[in-house]
């Protein structure tokens, strides 16, 4: 971290105590977020100074001066204050902003992860064969997951982004700026985390009623742990029998969800093979607990207004509990 960045972080820590979540751009944990925050603090300082001077001069012009100045000095003010100074400052700032970009968009040296933003959750596939640049569709295959993205520390991970329905935007403020997921296009975003941790992501482009609740988590871990995680996600479900699994298929859940190792192979909603290993359910909304599984099955719409999943409150309570308990075991 550069020196201004350090000062800035200290400042933000002091001023904004208690206001830092894992979703704040003020608390960076990625190369891009750090550099942009530095840029912001410097622009903020410069901007504040300019504002004070401009307002000070206007106040002086309107109230402070003892008598009118000459036209000549007025024109001089316009030329220097209105033209030369802004042109020079803006040119310098533009140069800085531009030169940041090729560096931030450098090629990845880590894994490629395909992320499909769908109403209102995130389909994730690890270990896909990615290629840089715009292709029309996301690569197929890979290890499926949802709503939680693990990435290795110290590597540049390439996220390939698209959407089958409407435009969404992938944003993890502590790591990097956002990138849109646009139907018919594949965009790429490189994440380069600088410290391990769990970070919140959000959908930043309005995509419908449940836009507010289209969150996710990014988990930054050392590279070995990342490899192990992907390998474990590739395995079939931990428990594939019992009443919960049977009811899951019987009651139609399998039409939308996949649990590898069972008959459930729906492709509409999130893959639930390892759902209990994820920190949250309902796209970053609820902590993963058996009670929350049950509540969400009972009435998803109540918890996440606008969600596409229908309510299953008509099911007998014991069936809901059985399914929830089974899901709770799918680590």
């Amino acid at each position, binding site marked *: 971290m550069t020196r201004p960045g350090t000062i800035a972080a200290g400042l933000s820590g002091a001023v904004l105590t208690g206001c830092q979540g894992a979703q704040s751009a003020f608390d960076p944990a990625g190369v891009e977020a750090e550099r942009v925050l530095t840029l912001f603090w410097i622009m903020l300082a410069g901007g504040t100074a300019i504002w004070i001077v401009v307002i000070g001069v206007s106040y002086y012009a309107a109230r402070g001066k003892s008598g009118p100045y000459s*036209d000549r000095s007025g*024109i001089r003010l316009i030329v220097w204050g209105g*033209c030369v100074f802004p*042109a020079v400052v*803006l*040119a310098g700032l*533009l*140069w800085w902003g*531009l*030169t940041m*970009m*090729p560096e931030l*968009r*450098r*090629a990845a040296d880590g894994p490629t992860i395909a992320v499909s933003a769908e109403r209102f959750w995130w389909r994730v596939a690890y270990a896909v064969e990615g*290629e*840089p*640049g*715009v*292709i029309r569709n996301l690569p197929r295959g890979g290890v499926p997951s949802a709503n939680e993205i693990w990435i290795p520390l110290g590597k540049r991970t390439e996220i390939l982004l698209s959407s089958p329905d409407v435009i969404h935007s992938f944003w993890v403020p502590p790591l990097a700026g956002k990138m849109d997921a646009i139907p018919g296009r594949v965009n790429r975003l490189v994440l380069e985390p600088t410290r391990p941790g769990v970070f919140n992501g959000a959908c930043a482009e309005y995509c419908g009623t449940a836009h507010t609740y289209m969150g996710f988590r990014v988990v930054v871990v050392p590279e070995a742990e990342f490899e192990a995680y992907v390998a474990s996600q590739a395995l079939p479900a931990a428990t594939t029998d019992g009443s919960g699994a049977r009811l899951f298929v019987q009651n139609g859940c399998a039409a939308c969800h996949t649990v590898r190792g069972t008959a459930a192979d729906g492709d509409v909603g999130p893959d639930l093979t390892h759902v209990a290993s994820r920190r949250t359910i309902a796209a970053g909304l609820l902590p993963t607990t058996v009670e929350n599984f049950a509540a969400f099955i009972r009435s998803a719409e109540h918890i996440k207004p606008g969600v596409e999943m229908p309510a299953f409150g008509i099911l007998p309570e014991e069936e809901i509990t059985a399914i929830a308990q089974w899901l709770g075991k799918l680590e």
Partner: protein
Amino acid sequence: MQVFGKTQDNLWTLVAAPTIWGFHFLFSYFLAAYRCAPNDDIFNTIGGTRAAIAGVTAVCLLLILLIARRAWREWRADGGGYSNNQDTPEARERFLEFSTLLLAALSFAAVVFETLPVLVFWDCR
């Protein structure tokens, strides 16, 4: 438009320089967009595109300088100075010439701004 003789300014001569900026801007943007549109290899260099934009930039800057030079000369010939609020054709000319000069200066700066990306980016990433 005469460059060296004395001409009558009007609204079209006033907007000539920013129009050149507009042309330069659209040319640069469309060329780069066209070049980068297939975008299957975003780390390939695009030297030709950059050179073409640089060439057009040079021509545009030259044209803007010619406009500025004409406006400057005629403004001086009409007496120069910032005072152009009199009820005479000369004052009207002086006003248009000086405004043209200012717009040429702005357009020059804006074209230079537009050229900076060409210096910084060498591929379609």
